[in-house]
Structure formats: structure tokens, C-alpha cells
């Protein structure tokens, strides 16, 4: 039997490729490329109390860019400013296999001499959430976790974060098959989460979105 969780979801977004859908406000943005997505997210911030700078993506790949944009839109959806004391849990089963191949193939094709630093740094699964943390100045705990799809592990980890001193909010990220869901959680609850519930279906249920 799962315990009810002492937190609730205040907003979030799902990015399916370059199509973004926010869960609380039900807004949708479709972009042709990440520059177009950046422009649309910048535009979406017009009536937002805190506008996040999107000058550059610090050489991040498409995944990094999506995390940064989705993190901003999740705050926009919840209509909250980012707070430093935000923890990040990044959950999924893909690890960084694609990025490992990108780095190593590039290194090999260039004569096995020196690789490219930004591709090497991208071989960590924590690079995308950390880039989002840098963009929004989120200084709480942050790590990536894979539990072979056992969803209660994710939800218990969120509860675990809220037991840590100083954590006021948790940003939950789930990346699978080029689809990223970012949810923001704050203390509250109780929140019952049935077995088998992933972040997108939780958002769908909470915000009655079908």
C-alpha cells in the first residue's frame, strides 16, 4: 500500500519534441526549431512577474534546450517565480547513451586525439537538469534516477526531498522517447498516487486535462 504524499503539484508542462503543453493553464506552443521555441517561450513570459533571460543555451544540445525551456514554462504555468531552494529529480530510463555515442563517435572521427568538451560534458544525464538549474538559479539537491520504471520510487524520492532541510519546492523531470514532462511540487497534500502513474498521467488527472 502506497502512503499518501505530503505535497501537491502546482503546475507543469509536457514537451513532445518541440510542442509544449502546459497542464494547469492548458496553453500550447508549437515550434519549428529551438530558436523558434525560445522566441515563443520569451513571448509567453510577457505577463509573467519574473522574466527569465534566454540569451543563449550555453552550447547545450537539443535535450538541454528543451529542459531549460520546459523549466521556464512550468514556472510560467504555475505562476510562480523560481526559488533557490528547489530540488530537482530527473527520472527516466534512457540515461545518456545517445550523448555517449555523440561524444565518442565525434572523438573517433577526428582521429582519437582530443574530443569536444561540450559533447563530453553532455555525457552526464544530470547535464540537462543542471543547465535548467543554472538558468533558473535552483540550488537545491539534484540527481538523475532510473528504477526500471518503478514509479513509486520517483514519488517517494519527491517526498524524500521535502524532508531535506531547506527544500521548498521540487521540480520533477521525466524524459522518455524525446518527450519531457516537468512538474513543480510544493508541500501540501495528502496526494494519493495510484500504482503505475507516471508524471504525465498524474498531471492529466490533477488538472482534468484530456
Amino acid at each position, binding site marked *: 500500500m502506497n502512503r499518501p504524499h505530503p505535497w501537491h503539484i502546482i503546475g507543469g508542462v509536457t514537451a513532445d519534441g518541440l510542442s509544449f503543453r502546459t497542464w494547469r493553464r492548458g496553453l500550447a506552443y508549437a515550434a519549428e526549431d529551438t530558436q523558434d521555441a525560445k522566441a515563443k517561450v520569451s513571448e509567453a513570459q510577457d505577463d509573467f512577474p519574473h522574466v527569465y533571460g534566454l540569451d543563449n543555451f*550555453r552550447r547545450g544540445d537539443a535535450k538541454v534546450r528543451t529542459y531549460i525551456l520546459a523549466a521556464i514554462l512550468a514556472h510560467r504555468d504555475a505562476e510562480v517565480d523560481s526559488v533557490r531552494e528547489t530540488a530537482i529529480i530527473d527520472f527516466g530510463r534512457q540515461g545518456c547513451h545517445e550523448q555517449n555515442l555523440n561524444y*565518442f563517435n565525434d572523438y573517433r572521427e577526428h582521429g582519437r586525439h*582530443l*574530443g569536444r568538451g561540450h559533447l*563530453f560534458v553532455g555525457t552526464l544525464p544530470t547535464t540537462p537538469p*543542471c543547465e535548467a538549474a543554472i538558468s533558473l538559479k*535552483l540550488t537545491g539537491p539534484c540527481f538523475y534516477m532510473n528504477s*526500471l520504471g518503478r514509479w513509486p520510487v520517483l514519488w517517494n524520492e519527491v517526498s524524500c526531498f521535502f524532508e*531535506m*532541510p531547506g527544500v521548498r519546492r521540487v521540480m520533477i523531470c521525466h524524459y522518455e522517447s524525446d518527450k519531457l514532462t516537468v512538474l513543480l511540487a510544493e508541500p501540501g497534500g495528502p496526494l494519493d498516487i495510484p500504482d503505475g502513474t507516471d508524471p504525465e498521467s498524474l498531471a492529466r488527472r490533477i488538472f482534468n486535462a484530456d
Partner: protein
Amino acid sequence: MDDRTPVIVDCDLYTAFGPGVEACWNGLLQNHAAFSDCSRFHNEKFSTALAAMAPGADVNGTQEIPGFFLEYLAATAKKMPRDAELFLASTVGEIEYIDNPERRCTCDMLLERALKVCDKENGRIVSAACASSNSAFVSLFRHIRSGRLDSAVVIGTDYVSEFIFSGFATLRALARTIARPYDRNRDGLLLGDAASIVNICSAKKAAELGLKPRAILASGGMSCDAVHITAPMPHGEALSEAIVHALNEAGLTPDDIGAVIGHGTGTRYNDDMELQAIRRVFGERSVPMLSVKGACGHTLAGAGLVEAVVGVRMLETGLIPPQTSLVTPEPEAARYVSAEIRKLEKPRVLCMNSGFGGLNAVIILEAVS
């Protein structure tokens, strides 16, 4: 100690000093550095060929090393029940056979293999760059304290591969001479192999299983610099926050800490940042400090586990190993580090790691009284 106090009941290591905790512990006490020329790949294009390689690990080729390490750790893992949760601390470098599409390993495959070899039902990968081990410990500490878990096996392995070596060379982080953490003339890090394991359970579960606690996992804290993807926060503010969280969690003050095992990679930026974070928290106190990376290299995701095992031995013996390869301490480090063996005056060791992404994770180990 109460029923839900997390206790370490067993541990093991395989490092460049060879198999077993004592091989590494004695190497540290004897001030040995276990580096040699790495011949696992063509190294002539890199600024150094030195690395700390585990003897006997690559007898069947580099790509078999992760499997070899897992097999080694399995004996200790199997001392815990099958339902103990497996925490695999990893940079998720599923990089063995990266040259061979038919045998490449994915993140899922990595965890599935670890579960099978260690004979465990459930597990999770915890990845936070070079702070992966300590992040796993901090998470586990919480789960045991809250009663969500009562036993776990924490393992971490990493090895010197062309993939990792070339990456750190690209970032110009490798030492041209030797790794000298906290030394004025340090010029970078050297990589190392390690396989490490720590079995942890609640005090109540340890009693039920008839396992004797060797040390207490007293607390932990984490933070993120949120400043730069590779460079640490110059003044160590976020790391010091993680240290303060860990101290507060355990109801301790800096005066209660007997020694600090730092991340101490030997790069200028990392060591400077750490020293400033320690100064920020400990003020004028001269808490003894050391880094094991001067002896057995930077073992990446496994680094925190190696340090935790060394911390357990420090608590059990009351000794602090010398700082390997220390010649002239960095002025800011002079009050903390020593080339001599010292006595551990207080029964708590603080271990800290920092990784790319600005990730910081700190744990405090305490002697069993």
C-alpha cells in the same frame, strides 16, 4: 542510536592497491600513490599516461572490467537479503563496447546486470556526476530514517577508459605530473579504477539480521551551485550550504567533526573551492583534512564510496592517513592537511563530493559507541 538509525554493516573495495579494504587502507597509511602508465589504449596524444589501475582487472580486456568488478562486489552484496534495495551510483557511463553496436550497454541494461549479479530484486541508479555515491547515501539516509526502506546495498564502479580519459584530457583537467590534492603545485587530477560497496540498514534490521554495525550514517546534505556546468562556484557557497545542512541534520557543530575527507581532485579550481567552503563553515578551526585521490586517483561515480569506506576505517582505527604526494601545502590548506599520520580526535568523519553541474553531496559518518 534508535531503531531507524542507518548503520553501515559491511563494506569492500577494489582499487589500484588491489582487492580488499586493507590493501587500500595500508596503501594510504604508507603514503603510496598507486599510479602507473596506462596501456589500455593509445595514450601518446595525451598530456599524461598515468592512471591508477586495479591490478588484475583487465585480464580479459578493458571492456570486461565492469563485469569483473561487479562479480567481485557480489559476494558482499549477497550478505544482504534479496529484498534489500540496490543503489547503483553511476555517472551512467554505459561505455563499455561503445565501439561495438552489438554489445553496447544501455542504462537499463547496466542496472539489470547489477541486480542479477548481486542477486537483488529491486534497485535504482543514482547519478549525480562525481557526487553520485554521496547523493545515493543522502537519499538512502532519508529513506531509512523515514522507514520507507530498511536495508540497502550501495555500489559504485568506474574504470579508466579511453572514453573518460579523452574527455578529461579535452577539458585539460589531467595532471601533467602527479595528482597532488591541496598542494600549492598541483596541476590536475589523475583517473583511477574502483569498485566499492557499502551495506547499510536500519539499526533494528541489523539486529534482526545479526549484523554488527561498523559505523553510523549520521546525516547528509546536498546542493547545486547553479552557476556553471563544469567550473565550481569560486567561493564554495553551495558546498558550504550542503555541509551546514548535514551538520544541522545530525544536530552537530563543526567542533564535533574529527576529520574531513574532501573531494580533493587536485585541480586548482576544485581544491580552492573546497578549501573556501571548509573555511566558511569551520572558521579558524583546523580540522584535519585529506583526499584519497592523490593515492588511488579520481574514481568518478565511485569516489564517494571509496571515501566512505576509508572513513569507516578511520573511525575504527582512530587514524587519519597522510595526504599522499603532498610536498608544499596550498597556503589555505596548510592548517588542514599533513603528510604524516594523525590521530582522529573526534568520532565523526565528514565526506564531501562535488561534480559537474555544480552538484555537491556531503555525508557524516560516526563511530559506533
